[in-house]
């Protein structure tokens, strides 16, 4: 798109950019920088931060373990079954997270379709626990990973796998020693996006896991909580999350912020 663009586009483009700049500016200008470090190190914040990071990391791990095979299957399979699974996996991306939380409750809740057996047989109760936080985060984060990795696998040049097979590598060796290293950029990007999405999850978490301090109150829930009692604290938490987001974007720079 190096050709001349109509000048008329620049006005809405500038307004659009401004629309994104102002909220960020508001956050940074209103932040109580003097008390920033003190607020940050207060026990409830540290608790929420630590819980968030642990749960998001676990959700990212689950995403990798189950999402990678799913992506491989989606990239290789054909026919209506693939389309069906594709739709199911993509659904959480467009579904309101609250609805996702309700659906999770109905499936894995104490009275849920599957959850009642977990409770009856193993005494396992998933909702309103840190495990519930991880599940909710995985539910919303995995689709981003699966689609990113699937795209990577689709653009993988299969002749490299052929070459490896002809050299004596079985399917598992080809996958782990050639395919995965060669799609490493997509894998990395998928993991970072999944982690960011898991870290920011609110709707599904509060519905499925609740908002119990120290148990299921992650950073976004803490921001929401603080906003009602301690607006200054909410701003501090928000600025912290902006910083984390900036860091994640930095990690993604090759993949998303590609400049020709």
């Amino acid at each position, binding site marked *: 798109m190096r050709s001349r663009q109509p000048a008329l586009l620049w006005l809405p483009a500038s307004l659009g950019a401004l629309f994104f700049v102002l909220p960020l500016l508001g956050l940074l200008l209103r932040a109580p920088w003097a008390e920033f470090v003190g607020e940050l190190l207060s026990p409830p914040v540290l608790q929420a931060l630590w819980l968030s990071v642990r749960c998001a990391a676990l959700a990212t791990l689950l995403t990798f373990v189950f999402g990678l095979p799913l992506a491989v299957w989606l990239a290789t399979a054909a026919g209506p079954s693939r389309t069906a699974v594709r739709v199911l996996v993509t659904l959480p991306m467009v579904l309101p997270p609250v609805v996702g939380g309700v659906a999770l409750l109905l499936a894995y809740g104490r009275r849920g379709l599957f959850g009642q057996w977990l409770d009856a047989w193993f005494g396992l109760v998933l909702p309103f626990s840190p495990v519930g936080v991880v599940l909710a985060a995985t539910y919303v984060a995995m689709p981003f990973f699966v689609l990113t990795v699937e795209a990577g696998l689709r653009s993988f040049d299969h*002749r490299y796998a*052929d*070459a*490896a*097979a*002809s*050299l004596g590598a*079985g399917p598992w060796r080809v996958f782990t020693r050639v395919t995965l*290293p*060669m799609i490493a950029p997509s894998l990395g990007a998928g993991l970072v996006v999944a982690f960011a999405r898991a870290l920011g999850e609110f709707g599904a978490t509060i519905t499925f896991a609740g908002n119990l301090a120290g148990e299921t109150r992650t950073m976004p829930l803490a921001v929401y909580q603080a906003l009602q009692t301690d607006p200054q604290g909410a701003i501090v938490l928000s600025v912290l999350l902006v910083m984390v987001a900036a860091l994640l974007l930095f990690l993604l720079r090759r993949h998303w912020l590609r400049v020709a």
Partner: protein
Amino acid sequence: MSLSADFSAAAGSFELAARLQVGGGETVALVGPNGAGKTSVLRAVAGLLPIRAGVIRFDEQVLDDGSPAGFVPPEARGVGFVFQQPLLFPHLSVMGNVAFGLVARGMARRAANAHAAGWLDRVGLADRARAMPGELSGGQAQRVALARALATTPRILLLDEPLAAADATARLELRRELRSQLQQFAGVRLLVAHDAVDAFALADRIVVVEQGRVVQAGTVAEICGSPRSRYVADLVGLNCFSGTARDGVIELPNGARLVASGARDGAVFATVHPHAISLFRERPSGSPRNVWRAPVLGIEPALDCQRVRLGGEVPLVAEVTARAVSELQLATGGEVWVALKATEVRVQAG
């Protein structure tokens, strides 16, 4: 030691039906137009393209008979495959690439690296062992690919236009390299060549594949002596015609006639060597049965002669000496008398 293949397989949009045999220490080149199915033959032998029916066999061992039970996966076939592109694994060093197949076949890393270093030395790239594939030139990368394939000591060596990716200067050196490596390789060698020079320089026998079928097989001399298709005739630089013969006269599709001694009645395929065509300023007298006047479309210098392109009803290329060109005052746009002995028109059943 020999590879025998007689099979059919789905190759893209058409059905490939190939039949060929390669002995130990022999190099067979598959030639044919683009999209004829040459690469698919190699892929079927390597196990990258399962066949539909027939059988591919190495000595007594069945590699594929079209059934899942009879299919030996590529990693267990003992093939070395050099592809059109080097396809070096970009995340591994040059040495890592050459050692890859050895490690995959169970060799310890240290031993594999030592072995790989030896192979890199043999292709003259010992000093590039630590380089990454992206730092190599096209010719170097293809030499590494060759070393990588040979390092696993395959029984069958498959080369798919191995010189295609190299530029003109690297090509010459690579061809020499390839020839010396092929001579030292004891197994079965099957090569796809798009370029006739590659095929003739490297192969003992030629198999011509067109539209998924083997149309001719034989030694280089046999193929050049009596090409059975336009593609091969063009490949070896002969003039060729298809037409219908009756009473020793071939009628071409445009109505032109060529007298050919010994032509059997029916559809025929005829070739005329460019050397066999004589050109004259005046109408020649004497024995030639085919005489006509033709416009000169162009004159191109060839290795040791001038190639004169002639138009008219029977388009031909004639090869004459540079002296003849000046004596005949041949020039593009001019006209010349063409004479062709009936015995020089070589005819086979089309």
